[in-house]
């Protein structure tokens, strides 16, 4: 389903803090229900590109949850303030308006679409990259598709969103396992350690892996899946000025040379369709 043409102003209905992150909600009266993995280009109506300075371009943000209601779809976003754009989004107040373009980009494929033999899904999210995993998890659960979720954080300050996006009845959903580099929650170490252990067991090799997180983590996931011959889909990031194929800024190298535009050919990309994920 195509996105409405142009940007539209949507009202902020809530903005709460969750650990080191914020979760804000918009009421989208015009847009279609987004598919898991899609993103929006967002910019606040006020204090964005006014009077010069940054932020100037809109920012790409994944949808973390979308709940249809009679006055439109409620869109939830999980953000971490890392610069002027995300800082401004973190400060949004209920009642103010945000320019929204989208939903944009492609979405995750079900395990059966990726591999007809597959038995289920493994979702692995790191840091702010847990956002698209939340809406994808809910979608798979609703369809009765077996799944395991692995979520990792650097430390307590760089974590959040669990209570709102991955809990039911006050406790962490039973399919979710945590890892943290500082050991504040779950396994102490990388979340990809959990994936490595899981893929080493023979029941996991028929799963399809879905991942979003920092580039180094995505590269580890891609390499692990390639090693175990397990299909994976990665929700990637690249610098985006427009989100709708206009600027050609979001280039990501393809394995056979050349580049894809991540905003139109992604953000969800099959592990074997990208060259090594570039990371510092």
């Amino acid at each position: 389903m195509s996105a409405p043409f142009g940007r539209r102003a949507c009202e902020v209905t809530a903005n709460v803090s969750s650990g080191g992150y914020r979760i804000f909600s918009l009421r989208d009266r015009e847009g279609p229900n987004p598919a898991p993995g899609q993103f929006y280009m967002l910019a606040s109506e006020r204090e964005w590109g006014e009077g010069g300075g940054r932020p100037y371009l809109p920012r790409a943000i994944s949808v973390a949850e979308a709940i249809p209601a009679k006055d439109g779809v409620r869109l939830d976003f999980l953000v971490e303030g890392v610069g002027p754009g995300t800082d401004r989004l973190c400060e949004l107040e209920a009642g103010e308006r945000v320019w929204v373009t989208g939903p944009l980009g492609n979405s995750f494929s079900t395990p059966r679409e990726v591999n007809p033999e597959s038995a289920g899904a493994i979702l692995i999210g790191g840091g702010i990259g847990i956002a698209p995993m939340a809406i994808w998890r809910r979608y798979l659960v609703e369809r009765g598709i077996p799944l395991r979720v692995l979520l990792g954080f650097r430390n307590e300050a760089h974590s959040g969103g669990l209570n709102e996006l991955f809990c039911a009845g006050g406790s962490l959903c039973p399919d979710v396992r945590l890892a943290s580099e500082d050991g504040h929650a779950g396994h102490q170490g990388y979340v990809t350690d959990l994936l490595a252990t899981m893929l080493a067991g023979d029941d996991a090799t028929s799963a399809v892996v879905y991942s979003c997180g920092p580039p180094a983590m995505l590269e580890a996931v891609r390499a692990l899946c390639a090693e175990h011959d397990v299909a994976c889909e990665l929700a990637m990031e690249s610098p985006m000025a427009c989100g709708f194929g206009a600027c050609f800024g979001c280039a990501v190298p393809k394995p056979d040379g050349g580049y894809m535009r991540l905003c139109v050919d992604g953000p969800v990309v099959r592990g074997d369709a990208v060259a090594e994920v570039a990371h510092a």
Partner: protein
Amino acid sequence: MPEFCGIELDHPVINASGTYDAIAARRIFGDALLADFPFSAFVSKTITPEPRAGNAPRRIWETPAGMINSIGLPNKGLDGFLAEDLPQLAQLPVPLIVSVMATNREEFSRLVREVGERDEVAALELNVSCPNVHSGLIVGEQPTETEALLEALRPLTEKPLIVKLTPNVANPEAVAVAAEEGGADAVSLINTLKASAIDPATGEPAIAAGHGGLSGPAVRPIALQQLRAVRAAVELPLVGMGGIASGADALEFLASGAAVVAVGTESFRDPRAGARIANDLETAVSRSPSRVEALHLE
């Protein structure tokens, strides 16, 4: 209704080359794009003789009120463009202007001949911000090179030839005069301003290519002055661009002698910016009828 080089336009707002991919936008926004097309003519991304992958990332960097880009002209090459893109662009509800660039006169001639003979094409824009491989000089920085190129290309097509000026020269008006003498039908300006930034995280240039071109509101006052200088030097119709983000901005360019304005970077913030700006212009003009005569916007 504005007329530009014999082409009837519904309003004076077109897009800047390389800042709108109407084919991708149609896939994303559907037929609403066609029903409500934001520009009165569509300018393609610059086409080169052979396909180009474009530059390695990072390609873009936000700056105060603007951005630096070094995209590297990714495109399918002339044959790919004619076979795959042109039929789709021909479905747009507005006249089509094709931007072309080559690094020698023979290749430039081939582009102009083969694009110019297509009925779907209303005009060509010559992107001359490229080196001539024989002289090593950027054609658009040299009045003599520009005039010689135009003299070679002029006889090859009857379609209007628009020369897109680079702002990275001391006297853009000298290049505009050369384009006029060489037989150009119009001049468009400005292309991006050479610029760079350092990534604070690495201490290295933020753009992988080392530098890029600045666009957006940050360049608007420079664009406007270059337009005024060129206006004073040539008779040709002018396409004014550089940081136009509102109807008021567009009015500045029209009041300084542009026949048409082009919107680039602002479309990244608002995919319908062209229509919004055209609308604002119409309102501004209807409020101040004396302006209408002055700007020939009727």
